[in-house]
């Protein structure tokens, strides 16, 4: 029997009612009487316990995985007010989901990634075909800090079969790094990374979309510590970017935060531009006294070659990606699509006049779609798993 997938959502402010409503909708939309696996996302303003109770009121024994997200995406709904919840239910004889979790992410992301990788190896899942990895983006400390994806995935990657299709994202409760929760069956945890191993007669393809183009020469990071880039080409990083953007008469360095995007080309250095080969790194803040850029991730180390990226604020850049998506759908006949979209790309936070997730909804057509707005997105860029900023990661799951 073909895999059945149902997606439901709710934006009620009552957490229990929202969980129940979304689950009921998923059961109905998928034509399901029971579910084997549930992917659940819960808005950051909700009470996660009550939300889970709402879900469990309808599917108490179903295996579950998910977490807090400040917005959700489904076939017919996009929301990011903090009260949105999404439930995706799978019933399949061919596709199997195995959920593994590793805590203590806030203590050491690398160690957590390594431990999670070992658990994946130990699980000995046969016919492992794909992997989703979701993690808690917020360290939940004062002052607030992000959990970095770079060391997490750097440690995880060696434990994975080479080239295993993989996609992921960081859970975010809101834009101020409030406490975030993860769901593992009936447990509610924090500071965890979840691995959802997808096995059986299935396949997964992933594409990324960000619409950014390089608009500068290659620049070399010459001094960096963690996520802070101090120097580019042996000059203060802020001065270099300021000069590139036309100086103080044209742009205020305060505008760099959440705007200046540096791209790493994982493809051929002077080859034809391919969007999918660029990993973007967004500036989180400007350290004015040190004339440094504070990035979302600590992967711009000394020696990294980057380019200043121009963000396309018009929807036309999506056309080529959508064409690719249609080709994938035609080729795979997928049963499900998952869209992990950067929270900053949501309309009210990006300043663009279109909602890229709407284009994704149109492109996937009748394929059930679920997704969430994330802090950092993860996909393979080139050979390696790469944390990404300002990016949407769209993956399709199909039966073989």
């Amino acid at each position, binding site marked *: 029997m073909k895999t059945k997938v149902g997606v439901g959502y709710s934006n009620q402010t009552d957490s229990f009612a929202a969980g129940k409503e979304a689950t009921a909708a998923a059961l109905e939309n998928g034509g399901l009487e029971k579910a084997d696996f549930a992917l659940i996302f819960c808005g950051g303003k909700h009470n996660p316990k009550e939300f889970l109770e709402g879900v469990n009121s309808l599917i108490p024994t179903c295996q579950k995985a998910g977490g807090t997200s400040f917005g959700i995406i489904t076939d017919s709904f996009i929301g990011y007010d*903090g009260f949105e919840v999404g439930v995706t239910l799978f019933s399949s004889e061919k596709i199997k989901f195995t959920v593994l979790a590793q805590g203590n992410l806030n203590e050491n992301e690398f160690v957590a990634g390594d431990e999670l990788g070992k658990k994946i190896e130990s699980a000995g899942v046969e016919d492992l075909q794909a992997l989703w990895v979701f993690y808690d983006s917020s360290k939940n400390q004062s002052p607030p800090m992000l959990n970095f994806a770079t060391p997490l995935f750097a440690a995880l990657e060696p434990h994975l079969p080479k080239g295993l299709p993989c996609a992921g994202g960081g859970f975010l409760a*809101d834009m101020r790094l409030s406490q975030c929760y993860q769901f593992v069956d009936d447990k509610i945890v924090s500071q965890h990374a979840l691995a959802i191993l997808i096995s059986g007669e299935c396949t997964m393809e992933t594409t990324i979309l960000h619409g950014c183009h390089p*608009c*500068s020469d290659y620049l070399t990071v010459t001094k960096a510590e963690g996520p802070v880039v101090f120097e580019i080409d042996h000059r203060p990083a802020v001065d270099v970017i300021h000069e590139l953007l036309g100086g103080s008469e044209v*742009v205020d360095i305060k505008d760099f935060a959440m705007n200046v995007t540096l791209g790493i080309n994982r493809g051929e250095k002077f080859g034809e531009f391919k969007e999918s080969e660029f990993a973007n790194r967004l500036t989180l803040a400007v350290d004015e006294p040190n004339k440094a850029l504070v990035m979302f991730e600590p992967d711009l180390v000394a020696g990294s070659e980057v380019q200043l990226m121009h*963000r396309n604020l018009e929807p036309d850049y999506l056309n080529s990606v959508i064409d690719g998506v249609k080709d994938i759908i035609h080729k795979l006949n997928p049963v499900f699509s998952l869209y992990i979209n950067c929270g900053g790309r949501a309309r009210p936070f*990006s300043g663009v006049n279109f909602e890229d997730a709407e284009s994704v909804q149109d492109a996937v057509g009748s394929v059930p779609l679920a997704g969430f707005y994330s802090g950092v997105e993860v996909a393979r860029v080139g050979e390696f798993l790469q944390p990404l900023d300002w990016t949407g990661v769209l993956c399709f799951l199909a039966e073989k």
Partner: protein
Amino acid sequence: MSSLEEKLVQAQKEIDYYKGRLKQLSTSYMALEYRTADLSKDVLQMTEGLKVIAELQDVDAMSDEDQLFDNLAESINIRLKMDVAAILLPVKERKLEFEMRYLKGFGSYNTEGVRKKIIKVPEEVYQSKEAVLFNKTDEKSEFGAYLSQELEIENLLFSPIIHNKNILGYFFAGRRTQLLQKGKGILPYHLNIMDAIGGVISTVQNQLERQLVLEQLVNERTKELQEEKEISENLLLNILPFETTQELKKNGKVKAKDYSMVTVLFTDFIDFTKYSEGMSPKELVEQIDFYYREMDHITMKHGVEKIKTIGDSYMCAAGLPVERDDHAVAAVRAALEIRDFVEQTKERKMKTGEPYFEIRIGLNSGPIVAGIVGIKKFAYDIWGDTVNVASRMESSGISGEVNISQSTYLLVKDLFHCEYRGQIPVKNKGDIAMYLVNPK
């Protein structure tokens, strides 16, 4: 320099030129886009805020106030992407103190703790009717800092809801500093939106007040109408039996109804014409009124329905409009009491030398038809030979006695002392058996 080197230098110069142009174009465009994007974010969020106002379009004086304010606080929280929103209303009999109502805080916000807080507004802030917009990073307002501490939020606005130049309460909306966005807390446009919402509430309040005035007027008019109605109904009850008034109200008309057995009673003052000649019309009416009032009491007491008076003749019947088996007994009892009243009055008036009446009373039992005729000054009346015979019983009666027919006699003979008078000739009826009835 060789020709090849010259070509290379020229090519490099061209490359640098075009790179420079391209850089200038793209980077200046990017700087512009950064600012455009930031402006767009504000516009988009402002649009969301305007949706709160749009959601109020259906609100009017008929809306449930609690529901309205509850939804409004939630909408402000969600649409304006706040962490908390509330409406504060004055604490009763405590000037300048406001309590939390309709508080909507979610997630980790200390909703229950803040719900109990009373906010004391300084006199000068209250009088100024100005809003307070406080962002922790750039504000030094003392009251703003107090609000921030009491309401447990870093950035906030506290905006008066003004109606007819008075402060009805305050809007409060708060937002924690957004770390993953540029550090913006509360913006001036949030205040504009609150002002607009306050305007809508004031309009609703106006409607509410007008409605209250209207309701008061309606209540007064309704009360007047009710009083008028009661008077009308009492008047109607004076001329029609209760059951008939109900039928008349329900159907607008009353069907004539057959009664198989009732007892009809007639009275007549003897020598009325003679007495009336010696009195002024006013005195005459007063005298009749005196007797008829008492007779009304007596008939009511015995459940006998007054039909009408014709000059000095009083006509009533027992067994209608609600049929009863003891109609004859009730009518005889009423007749005897009327007779006794008139006799006692006669004795009293004789002593004082006042004019007095003597009475004849006649009763007959049998079938009749009852109903209302006409459309003006309508009156409940009864028809049938039984009525005519009852009238003859009266006219053939004896002063100070109650004269009953054979049919009535048969119904009361066991309870009363009945004296047979014999077959007495009656005009157009031949000889009719008559009895004088008295208590045993």
